[in-house]
């Protein structure tokens, strides 16, 4: 996690220095895009990599035998492992968000003081309008639900990785499978659209599209930040629905993981 946060901080600071040559709107837009985009990549990556190692590592260290020899139900073992990863993800999202808001605020204050210096002779209403425009293009309260959805997506990926790791033999296999699942999950919406179209394709193609749609999660639904940064307001109902769907996914994958792990011979 430390390296992820370090990389994120370097990316933010480097980006913010480089972007100083842009107008403030361009600078804030690119800063937000890069910060939230990299936050999404890093949390997804952390969710997969951290979870993929959990069970193989315990098997390798033989700690799993010590734990399961005690009266600890296997479901609790899995739940504990997943809870640990979710906590780690929450911590990394909080740290990355804090860093992002600090950098955004520093840049905003710089632009505000520069504007105040340049417009000191302007009428107060013009000055207020200019400062308002700067503030509006910097921090936006809609960024918060966007960040929350990034976390929900990471939770979903962590639960799915845990499920895959219950039948995988190595952490590498789990990671590779999850990379594929990640890409297929983002294409799932396209597959669903074609599948549900009445006269889109032959039955073999339709069967394949149905297979993709039913088996893989639709990760595109959790990509709200692109549009939030562009200024779109997320209605509360949509946010709640998306977050609920994400946690529902995570819960279901945990149950699936348990159903595989329940009778697994260790």
């Amino acid at each position, binding site marked *: 996690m430390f390296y992820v946060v370090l990389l994120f901080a370097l990316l933010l600071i480097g980006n913010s220095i480089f972007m100083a040559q842009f107008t403030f709107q361009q600078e804030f*837009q690119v800063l937000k895009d890069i910060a939230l985009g990299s936050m999404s990549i890093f949390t997804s990556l952390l969710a997969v990599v951290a979870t993929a190692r959990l069970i193989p590592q315990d098997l390798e260290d033989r700690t799993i035998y010590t734990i399961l020899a005690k009266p600890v139900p296997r479901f609790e073992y899995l739940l504990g492992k997943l809870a640990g990863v979710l906590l780690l993800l929450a911590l990394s999202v909080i740290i990355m968000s804090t860093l992002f808001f600090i950098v955004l605020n520093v840049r905003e204050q710089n632009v505000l003081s520069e504007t105040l210096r340049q417009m000191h002779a302007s009428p107060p209403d013009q000055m207020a309008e200019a400062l308002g425009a700067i503030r509006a293009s910097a921090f936006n309260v809609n960024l918060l639900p966007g960040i929350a959805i990034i976390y929900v997506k990471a939770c979903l990926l962590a639960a799915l990785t845990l499920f895959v790791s219950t039948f995988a033999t190595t952490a590498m296999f789990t990671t590779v499978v999850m990379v594929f699942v990640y890409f297929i999950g983002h294409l799932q919406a396209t597959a669903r659209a074609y599948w549900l179209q009445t006269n889109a394709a032959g039955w073999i193609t339709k069967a394949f599209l149905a297979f993709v749609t039913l088996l893989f999660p639709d990760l595109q639904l959790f990509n709200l930040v692109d549009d939030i940064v562009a200024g779109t307001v997320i209605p509360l109902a949509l946010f709640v629905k998306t977050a609920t769907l994400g946690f529902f996914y995570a819960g279901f994958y945990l149950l699936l993981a348990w159903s595989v792990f329940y009778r697994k011979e260790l």
Partner: protein
Amino acid sequence: MMRVFIVILGLALFGSARLPTEHAIATAHRQLHFCAVDFDSELREQIGQLGFIAALSGFRSLVADVLFVQAHVAWERTEWGRVLLLFRQVTTLQPRAILFWETAAWHMAWNASAAAMRDSTQPRLALRIKAQREYFQLGKDFLERGIRKNPDRPQLYEALARLYRDKYNDHEHAAEFFGKAADRPGAPSYAKRFAAYELSACRGREREAYDRLHALYAAGENERLPTLIRRLKDLEIKLAIPLDQRISDPVP
């Protein structure tokens, strides 16, 4: 083997259960113009295979930003063809980012058109003017496409009005688009005023312009700006408004 079958069956059943919810959320996304990107072969040709996959995998805004930075560099080098190509890609990937449409239109209609007029390699004035007009058209095209993707936001209507006013000298259209901008939520306070200013420059619509400017004047002190008073005074003379109905402010 049985367990694998049960797991796949469980996944499929879960898939069918969540399908209506996901479909409803996807419909809500479309209504809100989320991800209004056409991931087709044309876009793939434009941004390349790698960029296309990245855009499809949830890194759409990151790819758009990288291309935007490239467009900025191309602008610094005054490579106008490349600027146009890159901004077409950027706006295709991030159609909801107003800033990208505005910047693209500004580069085309203001910067590239000015560069075309000063092009020392083209000695014929007629061809330079033709090139300049083509860049105006490219800027207009960006704004019109941007408006189609963002019909609810005022900024692009305003930018198009400015383009009509400053580049085409078309006050009729400028008034129309300033008016449309003023009707959208979050429009700047001056949009309504600017629509009336432009209308006052349209032949045959002086009475309408006078009524609008007078309504703004009557709205309060904040609207009584020097330009508004000057235009009102001009229209009072042009329309031969009776002296007792004229505004009392001196000509600024």
